[in-house]
């Protein structure tokens, strides 16, 4: 398997409507050669539809799709020479494991000797050596998943598609498989498009994530950028946890509840750091970026903002504890801290008045109403 065989994918203006509902709304997307890109979105967002367009099972109403230099939008699925792993694996029950994995090779006229060698190699790659003679129904869910993977990579496709392949596995197995799949991708180097609704999975495995909702791309970025610098409210809410403050511009600075806030001077996304008087926006705060401090300790350090709040519930969650608090203007915010012994000892009590501190660079300004 050579990295040289990976190709980029170019999607231009792809649209698909079912009746009046737009499943895909003029999507433009570039997947780089050898990249691991995840399509992330809630149910019905269009991510699986887009994957099916890539595979050739759904013909879009318009648009262009290129694998490298080849225009494939009208190419039948069996001529596209790409691999796919289905959500429920779609293994052939009438063939044993080795025959399942050998299937694409037989279709390509590979000699019996070569076939056997490559099947063994593929099974070794997915850590299933020795299970070639097992029947499909004798395998566990995790093993079936690996067979499906072996079958999809054995013929060294230029592109690999995966439709929520880990969703049927239990949590422990899913998490270890995420890392394994990532290692496999690094080893084989093919362009991979992965579909999931689990944002944690997307952040763990991907080079870049394309967040999709309502048939439209919300943001395409690296996991770090999506988490730290979401471009709109949808992405901010979908990825990780967040609290939102309503802020208004006054005197050239953003203010919450009349108090000016110290925010990062870097322009964040589409937001103007020098806003017009009366402009409105929302400020996103991640729970782990809010520090809980005692009230009445004087002004905080420069570059830090302090929000007075009354504590509601304090929820212990094993590795962390969550403090839900109410601000003066009725906004609910959550702060999260590591549940070490000292931190737990200092944890606030219900109805206690505290100050929530956050640094200038850790809040993100977003347009008031993001695209939904």
């Amino acid at each position, binding site marked *: 398997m050579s990295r040289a065989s990976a190709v980029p994918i170019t999607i231009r203006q792809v649209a698909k409507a079912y009746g009046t509902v737009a499943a895909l709304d003029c999507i433009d997307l570039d997947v780089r050669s050898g990249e691991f890109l995840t399509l992330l979105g809630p149910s019905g967002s269009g991510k699986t539809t887009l994957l099916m367009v890539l595979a050739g099972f759904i013909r879009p109403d318009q648009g262009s799709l290129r694998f490298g230099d080849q225009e494939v939008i009208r190419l039948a699925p*069996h001529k596209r020479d790409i*691999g796919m792993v289905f959500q*429920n694996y779609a*293994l*052939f029950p*009438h063939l044993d494991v080795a025959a399942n994995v050998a*299937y694409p090779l037989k*279709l390509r006229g590979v000699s019996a000797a070569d076939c056997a060698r490559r099947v063994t190699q593929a099974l070794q790659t997915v850590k299933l050596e020795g299970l070639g003679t097992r029947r499909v129904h004798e395998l566990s869910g995790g093993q079936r998943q690996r067979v499906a993977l072996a079958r999809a990579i054995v013929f060294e496709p230029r592109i690999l598609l995966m439709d929520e392949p880990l969703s049927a596995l239990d949590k422990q197995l899913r998490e270890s498989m995420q890392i394994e799949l990532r290692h496999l991708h690094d080893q084989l180097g093919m362009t991979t498009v992965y579909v999931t609704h689990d944002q944690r999975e997307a952040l763990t495995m991907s080079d870049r994530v394309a967040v999709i909702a309502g048939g439209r791309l919300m943001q395409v970025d690296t996991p770090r950028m999506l988490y730290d610098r979401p471009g709109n409210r949808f992405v901010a809410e979908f990825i990780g946890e967040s609290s939102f403050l309503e802020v208004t511009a006054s005197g050239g600075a953003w203010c919450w509840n009349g108090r000016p806030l110290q925010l990062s001077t870097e322009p964040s996304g589409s937001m103007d750091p020098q806003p017009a008087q009366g402009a409105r926006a929302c400020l996103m705060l991640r729970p782990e970026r809010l520090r809980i401090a005692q009230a009445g300790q004087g002004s905080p350090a420069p570059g830090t903002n302090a929000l007075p709040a009354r504590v509601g519930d304090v929820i212990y969650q094993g590795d962390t504890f969550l403090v839900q608090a109410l601000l003066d203007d009725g906004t609910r915010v959550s702060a999260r801290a590591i549940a070490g012994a000292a931190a737990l000892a200092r944890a606030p009590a219900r109805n206690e008045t505290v100050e929530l501190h956050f640094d200038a660079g850790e809040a993100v300004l977003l347009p008031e109403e993001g695209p939904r």
Partner: protein
Amino acid sequence: MLLGLSGPALALVLVTMVLPIAWLFGLSFLADDGSLSLVRYRRMIEQPSYARIFGATFKVSLLTTALCVVLGYPLAYVLSQLPRRAANLCLIAVMLPFWTSLLVRTYAWLVLLQRRGLVNTWGMELGLWDEPLALVHNLSGTLIGMVHIMLPFLVLPVLNSMRSIDMDCMKAAANLGASPTRAFWSVFFPMSLPGLFAGSLLVFVICLGFYVTPAVLGGGKIVMVSNQIANDIELFFNWGAASSLGVVLLVSTMALLWLASRLTRLEQLLGASR
């Protein structure tokens, strides 16, 4: 408690089925003079006419089964690919004859296929042939009638089997490089084989014991085991001979079904709950 509730039903089955069959079974071991003997079974092996009868029975059953498969499999395939509502409407069309009396259907075929029947009259009037075709009172007529009656027995298990095929497997086959034809023969067809096997077996087993249709449409030229049993009883009043044939038929049918159940999960294929 359970025995008490099922008591009446058990008694009914006992009186109407088990006892008469046991009596018939016993009859086959009695010679003409009333003594216990195996003479009837020996005669079956010795006399060539019995071999001919068994041969005819198997031949007709095999041919009917083969024709049902050839006609019924494509029909089931089309039904499995149609959207549910259209498929169910078509299924009603396949099942409708099923709910009509067997005798009525058989005689209807007689009316259609006989010398001055509908088929011959229209065929000659349209100039397709000059002499009336001999479509009844022979093997052809028998087969036409039997295939018509047996078709639902094949279509239903095959359709069941086809509907339970995961269509993602077909998508996977296409994605891996199989053309639609290749995908059908290498994935869909093998996965539908259990249903085809069950349906064929069902048709074959029912054909073995079939009476009315070969009797009416065969015109006496087709003598299957069932016809011989009828002759033994109606013409020769030979209950012993009739029952011995009946026993052979019953035992061979049960043996076939047992063999099939060892090879496949037959009950599931024929529609038992999963």
